[in-house]
């Protein structure tokens, strides 16, 4: 599908605004909203995964029973994950000062 953007003309935008490549918000970066950044301390992590379901931005991927590095393209830095972590394996630092 042709990439639609604010320069697209009336023939290029999709009829009715319907989107055919669902889930394409993944291409939109909300990581730059972040003022504070979560830092994953893998050495401290006990892989309890309690951080994963609380993320509003689906930014804590889990694979093979292990949480992986944050998806910083989408994480908005809300810190809910850091708050629920029982072992302080997530540290919040001001963006740009990690």
């Amino acid at each position, binding site marked *: 599908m042709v990439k*639609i*953007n604010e320069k697209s003309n009336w023939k290029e*935008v*999709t009829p009715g*605004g319907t*989107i055919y490549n*669902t*889930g*394409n*918000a*993944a*291409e*939109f*970066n*909300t990581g730059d*909203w*972040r003022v504070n950044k979560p830092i994953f301390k893998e050495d401290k992590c006990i892989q309890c*995964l*309690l951080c*994963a*379901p*609380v*993320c*509003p*931005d*689906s*930014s804590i991927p*889990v*694979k*093979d*029973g292990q949480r992986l590095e944050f*998806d910083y*393209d*989408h*994480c*908005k*830095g*809300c*810190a*809910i994950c*850091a*708050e*629920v972590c029982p072992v302080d394996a997530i540290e919040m630092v001001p963006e740009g000062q990690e």
Partner: protein
Amino acid sequence: MTEKYNFKQEMEKEERLTGGHRMCAGCGAPVAVRAVLRALEEDDEAVIGCATGCLEVSTFMYPYTAWKDSFIHNAFENAGATTSGAEAAYQSLKKQGKLANDKDHKFIAFGGDGGTYDIGFQSLSGAMERGHDMTYVCYDNGAYMNTGIQRSSATPRFADTTTTPVGTEKKGKSQYRKDLTAIMADHNLPYVAQTTFIGNFKDLHQKAKKAIYTEGATFLNVMAPCPRGWRYPPEKMMELCKLAVETCYWPMFEIENGEWKLNYKPKEKMPIEKFLEAQGRFKHITKSEKKDMIEEMQAEVDHRWEKLLIRCGEKEK
């Protein structure tokens, strides 16, 4: 049909709501959506309806959608009717053999408390009463957050909202909240439940699973905190949910084929003040000298809790 909850396995499921949506940092609504959609079997397709509200405008801003499943937003007050129409189409096309039948389609509607308790109530009631094979999920954040924190019928009494502002004559909202979950139970639906985010989301997961995989119209009421509207630091989301449950402000229960069941009973009921003082919208009552408003609210919470205990057979009438 309660299956064992394999938390780790559930967390590995592919996300059906992607990042890149424009909800506020720390918003509860996408957390609710992710949890509900995880209850879908991986092979099942879903058609998701959504009422206008924060969730809709922020997850589907042209040309981006965060939803991987088929999704339809129609208007504010008609997620119930719209989703019921899609479900009717499915029944018709399936019956006529016009669809490839190798995959099951599940129908899920999402609405905030504005789109569910208030403006969309008629449409919800109609769709549920007709018994479409669909699940309606309310993410209840207790006010019209999308338009700037106006009161809804789900807003707790005394809350300071932009249409029930605290002033010299008024102390926030005058009314207690509507008990929508009980009203939906009185529709005699096969499954109705109330829940929120607790621990590893077992309760929410199991309820979503039951709701989606029970044939007929089912209803789920999920409390989803709003840091902006409730005025608490965004990182405290899980704490707010816990306070709501431990104070019995937001009990967790379900009604399966008319049987009421309490899913969690605090060992010791926490005073409602604990829930109120965690939120800026109640600052005018928690920080004032007069405690009578808090006492009033406590009495109402107690009254509703007692009623629920009786309904759930936890207590003699």
